[in-house]
């Protein structure tokens, strides 16, 4: 692949928003731009709507936004949902984590040239390696199916959940669901352990097909998570440098747009996470499983480099932790109680809420007029935040690919796999 004219890697498989990477000659050097070509601006959808509709409108950005918007409503009407409602929302959140990570892992495992091998029907021997790969994809899909069933029970449906409303949850669960939920939790834990095992031993290790993920690397960036409703920021080395309530978000996080991508970039305002290092895009920070992982420091990651395989390991760790929590949360007594909802009396004018979604930190802020109509909305979520990191990963992948003089499709595959994990 030559250096002179621009090359495009388009379309990139498995990305949430439609995006492409354009590599442009920049006086002898190459510059790779990760461009998002289509973007749904939440302001278009939410401004003018009744505020209690936010959970169902924002759920199309990601299922977790549904829970974040419900918490926003609780703040707006300042009501505290009863415990069992909190449990049901947490339970739904857990299953959404599983759904999101397993979907990413499944896309990772898809065989580029034969994504849907049909071993049962075709007579010819598929070869041991293909069969093994298919069985692994099968287990991931099996786990994903179970997680989706749990999300459907708790949230009405797995993709755009419905049940989280102002002050709690919209209805009790039917009796036979409790027993089913406990079954799902146990099965998921068992599957997730199996998945983590074969990822660690067969795929990410030295000879594994996904080993290439550890070859490209970028220098670490500060991270942020939402813990107990506050936003905690850690610097590159993983030390907590500060936390602030969601209301302070506009002062701490700025959102700006670049001409070459419709997707805005969220970045920490200077000084928020250590001195400005003068990179191209200041204040880039990271949310998601990686951000959550540091504070437990279970797996060994070199804090000097940040590679997609670290992200993959973080995701697997996240899966295991969530599955364990599910086994003790999915019990009947957590979901049975007198009331599933405290009815709000009066309505405030403005509210902010933060939630740690599967993909990372989600911050929502909204102002409302007298009749309960949304006047303005501020959404800061992983899609915007990780945009900066994803641009750097794309540059690293292209640079490494060109350096090792790989073919176009090879670079494209690595690019897709690495972007998938952030």
């Amino acid at each position, binding site marked *: 692949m030559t250096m002179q004219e*621009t090359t495009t890697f*388009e*379309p990139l*498989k*498995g990305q*949430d928003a*439609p995006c492409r990477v*354009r590599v*442009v000659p920049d006086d002898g050097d190459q510059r790779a731009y990760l*461009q998002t*070509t*289509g973007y*749904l*601006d939440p302001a*278009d*959808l939410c401004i*003018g*709507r*009744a*505020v*209690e*509709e936010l959970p*169902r*409108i924002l759920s*199309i*950005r990601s299922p977790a936004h549904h829970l974040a918007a419900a918490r926003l*409503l609780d703040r707006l*009407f300042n009501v505290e949902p009863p415990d069992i409602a909190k449990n049901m929302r947490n339970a739904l959140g857990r299953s959404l984590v599983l759904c999101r990570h397993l979907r990413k892992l*499944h*896309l990772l495992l*898809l065989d*580029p040239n034969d*994504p*849907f*091998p*049909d071993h*049962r029907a075709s007579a010819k021997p598929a070869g041991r390696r293909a069969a093994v790969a298919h069985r692994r994809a099968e287990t991931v899909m099996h786990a994903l*199916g179970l997680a989706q069933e749990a999300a459907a029970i708790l949230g*009405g449906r797995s*993709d*755009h959940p*419905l*049940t989280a*409303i*102002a*002050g709690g949850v*919209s*209805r009790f669960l039917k009796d036979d669901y409790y027993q089913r939920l406990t079954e799902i939790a146990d099965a998921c834990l068992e599957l997730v352990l199996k998945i983590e095992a074969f990822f660690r031993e067969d795929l990410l290790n030295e000879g594994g097909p996904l080993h290439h993920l550890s070859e490209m690397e970028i220098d670490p960036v500060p991270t942020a998570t939402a813990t107990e409703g506050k936003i905690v920021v850690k610097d590159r080395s993983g030390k907590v440098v500060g936390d602030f309530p969601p209301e302070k978000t506009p002062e701490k996080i700025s959102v700006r747009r670049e*001409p*070459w*991508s*419709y997707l805005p970039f969220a970045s920490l305002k200077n000084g928020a996470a250590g001195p400005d290092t003068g990179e191209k895009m200041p204040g880039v920070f990271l949310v998601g499983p990686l951000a959550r992982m540091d504070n437990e420091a279970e797996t060994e990651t070199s804090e000097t480099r940040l590679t997609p395989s670290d992200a993959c390991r973080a995701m697997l760790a996240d899966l295991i932790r969530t599955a364990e929590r599910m086994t003790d949360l999915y019990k009947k007594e957590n979901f049975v109680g007198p009331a*599933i*909802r405290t*009815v*709000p009396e009066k*309505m405030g004018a403005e509210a902010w809420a933060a939630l740690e979604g599967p993909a990372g930190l989600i911050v929502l802020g909204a102002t409302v007029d007298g009749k*309960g*109509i949304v006047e303005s909305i501020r959404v800061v979520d992983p899609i915007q935040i990780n945009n900066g990191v994803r641009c750097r990963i794309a540059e690293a992948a292209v640079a490494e690919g060109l350096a090792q003089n790989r073919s176009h499709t090879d670079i494209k595959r690595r690019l*897709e796999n690495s972007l998938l994990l952030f």
Partner: protein
Amino acid sequence: MKPKIAIVSASGCRACETTMLDIHYGVSALNRWAEIQFWPFVLGSSMADLERIDHLDVCFFSGAIATGSDRAMAEMLRKKCDRLVAVGACAAYGGMPGLKNLKKPATAEAADRGDLPEELALPEQENRVRALDGVDGIDRVDAVVPGCPAPVNLVWAAVSALVCGGEADARITYAAARLPEEMVRPILSGLGPPPGAVFAGEKAVCATCSRKKEEKRFKAVKRPYQAYESTGRCLLEQGLICQGIATREGCGGLCTGVGVPCRGCYGKPPATFDPGAKMVSAISSTFETEKPAEIQKIADDFVDMTGCFYRYTLPAQCMLMKG
């Protein structure tokens, strides 16, 4: 010879496309029935591949037409494939992205290009978000699977009807139970659905909604954040604005079953002209009072009717804002 299919997503949240993935896993290997020629999300096939393909049998198109590239892809697919299926409310009626049209149609904001090299230019934003069905390049889609997101069973019914030629396994009977009579017979006999068929029921959501209906007497508007009986009586009769009475059924009363009012993601029933007008007509006719002052008070409690009645169908079915 297996039919060649394409699965594509324009501007939207891709939930309908992941449903196709779930079908593959849940039902049986998709490529036993079809040869997937063009699926950017999973196969990474590019626009160049699309130009090379000369003929496709079926294309499952989801997402609304909001940017120039969406429109280009839609027009090319229309030319190349026999049957274009709009999957999900975005493709069928414009979906939630269509709410953007409520604002004054902003001229496509020219990104401040500055020194940007020409090849980094982004596809133009359309001045109005349009549904696939009825955009000027494409006169009529051949089939529609409504819903936001399109439910697995109806998507599977569409796939098995259009792709599997009726030999699919027993799952079709489950989906067929929800489809109207005229559609199921040709599907089962392998002819495929009649042109312009909508893979959903013909009645409104109330037909399959599990809640108890007593008498429609509308006393005052109740907002969903206020207290209401989450099981048992019909939500509209409790004063909540539930669009179930004027929305096509197919979901089986999923939202009302869970205790939240329906927001009309399956689009208007077949015989009506405009969902908003029908909601206004049905609810206001059953107002309890006949004194003008009291009627005015009740009517003023209805907030953001355009955003609520046309939430998923503004570009296609809101006759006054369609433009």
